[in-house]
């Protein structure tokens, strides 16, 4: 049984509109289904506005989906009443993209990492203190810096604080929403390595939302490609990169700049007319689905 199973997830936003005026309906997530196995890293890629971030947030109900179901360990998170949802969130956490805006600048690093423990009333002050120090060590931060404020840390260190906070409650599932895209190139690799180490060590399952396809290829087991709110292709990472089936995936992969001056450049430009918007996902080869 998969750890997380998303079925027919839909999120519509109404854009514009107001008094006496109707807005337009935006289908940000339009009937999206996928399942993530325990211990797996599942990548969600697509351009900005494709619905990948909204999908991740809907799964944790940080945004309430319009319809569909999100089964976590067999139970539908979307039907949980408030109290039960709060409990479930212990087990499913998120790391945000921007380590500069996702940490409260007025809180010390210690307080930021401790906050989830306080909210969930776990342990006494002493136990929490020990746990925060342990988490600091786990993500490679110097416990001597516990009393510092976020602005006293570099971007990479801030992302480690965000990660420590997400791990405080011992979750089994993490939504990683572009976790390294705001970091310097030389620091990205450190955080990517840390994420992979932690996954091994703590048996974590990741939903990795990203637009950097080189990174997705490196870190993910399976990938789903989103285009205009729908998953247009889903496959094990090797299969997707070796033989992309959907016209959008082909265009996307051909657009990745290859760090080799002598690499052949076979740019495939997307012809929107080549996309059959009515097509449903079908299995092309073992585990490789495409809406063609």
């Amino acid at each position, binding site marked *: 049984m998969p750890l997380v199973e998303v079925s027919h997830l839909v999120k519509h936003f109404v854009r514009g509109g107001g008094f006496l005026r109707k807005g337009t309906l935006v289908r940000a997530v339009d009937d999206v289904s996928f399942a993530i196995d325990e211990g797996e890293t599942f990548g969600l890629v697509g351009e900005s506005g494709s619905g990948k971030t909204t999908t991740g947030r809907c799964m944790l109900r940080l945004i309430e989906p319009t319809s569909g179901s999100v089964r976590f360990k067999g139970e539908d998170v979307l039907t949980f009443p408030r109290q039960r949802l709060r409990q479930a969130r212990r087990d499913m956490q998120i790391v945000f993209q921007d380590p500069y805006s996702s940490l409260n600048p007025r809180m010390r690093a210690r307080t930021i990492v401790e906050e989830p423990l306080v909210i969930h009333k776990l342990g006494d002050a002493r136990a929490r203190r020990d746990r925060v120090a342990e988490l600091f060590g786990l993500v490679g931060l110097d416990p001597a810096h516990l009393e510092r404020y976020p602005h006293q840390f570099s971007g990479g260190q801030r992302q480690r604080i965000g990660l420590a906070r997400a791990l405080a409650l011992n979750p089994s599932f993490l939504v990683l929403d572009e976790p390294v895209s705001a970091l310097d190139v030389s620091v990205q690799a450190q955080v990517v390595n840390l994420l992979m180490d932690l996954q091994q060590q703590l048996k974590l399952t990741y939903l990795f939302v990203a637009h950097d396809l*080189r990174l997705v*290829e490196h870190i993910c087991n399976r990938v789903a490609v989103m285009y205009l709110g729908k998953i247009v292709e889903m496959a094990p990472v090797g299969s997707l990169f070796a033989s992309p089936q959907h016209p959008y995936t082909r*265009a996307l992969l051909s*657009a990745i700049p*290859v760090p080799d001056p002598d690499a052949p450049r076979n740019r495939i430009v997307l012809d929107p007319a080549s996309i059959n918007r009515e097509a449903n996902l079908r299995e092309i080869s073992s585990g490789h689905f495409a809406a063609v």
Partner: protein
Amino acid sequence: MLLEVSHLTTVFDLPGGPVPAVDEVSFVVEPGETLCLVGESGSGKSVTALSILRLVQPPGRIAGGRVRFKGRDLLTLAEPDMRALRGAEISLIFQEPMTALNPVFTVGDQIGEALLVHGRATRHEARARAIELLTAVRIPDPAARVDDYPHQLSGGQRQRVLIAIALACKPSLVIADEPTTALDVTIQAEILDLLREMKNALGLSLLLITHDFGVVAETADRVAVMYAGRIVETGPVRAIFASPQHPYTRGLLASMPGLSRTRLKAIEGTVPMLGSLPPGCAFNPRCPDRFAPCTTAPPPEYTASGATTAPSGHTARCYLLDHAAR
């Protein structure tokens, strides 16, 4: 040569004392070539671009060096002459297509402005030229789009408009500061293709600032790698990728994700604060190959083979290349 930057130094006068954001930077851009300036945030690559155009705002100031463009020293040029040159002979494309355009003027007005300011067109001609330029940067239905406001365009289209503005007066040098960073990868590819095409069609030179070695590989003829305000390595693009000489360049290239699911070879530590650079080579605390001379003084420029400087070859500022020091 078209542009020659030598020993350019730009400091920011901060309460704690002057901080060099650009420290003795020298490079050359030849006619028709693309030079990529690569570095991480805070490496000084954007300040270098702004310094060339004398657009550094206080507390920043150019503290020394020379910028020669077509034989003229831009740092001593009178301000009216400099103003006549900006946008006409050297133009700048900014990173953020969302904020670089004025939201209350139409796209046509903003392209036309570049032409009017430099006396390249009358008000009447400006509109027709704007439509021509929008066609050149492949905006669909340019005759209608010319009256659009920036918010009516997508991010990629806005970047195309910025390119149209930059090319309006047919400059001989275009400086593009992370022109594709805010864009999706498919749009990035289209914009890079467009820049390359325009460069070839108009015979201009491109100074492209980026942090992405993929972009470098696709566009550069030559590369200059910056770290903590200094250029640490310069060379032809193939030489940089085939045999990077500076441990920082090697580290950046090795830290890029590849095919295998093995651990990435990360560079330890973080980019230093410019106000508190370590003595000697600024990279030495993070360098896996550090040895005695690295902490003494900033290394001079060595050629890849280890001799003293050669003007246009492959050079790096690293004591590893000094056989006497080793």
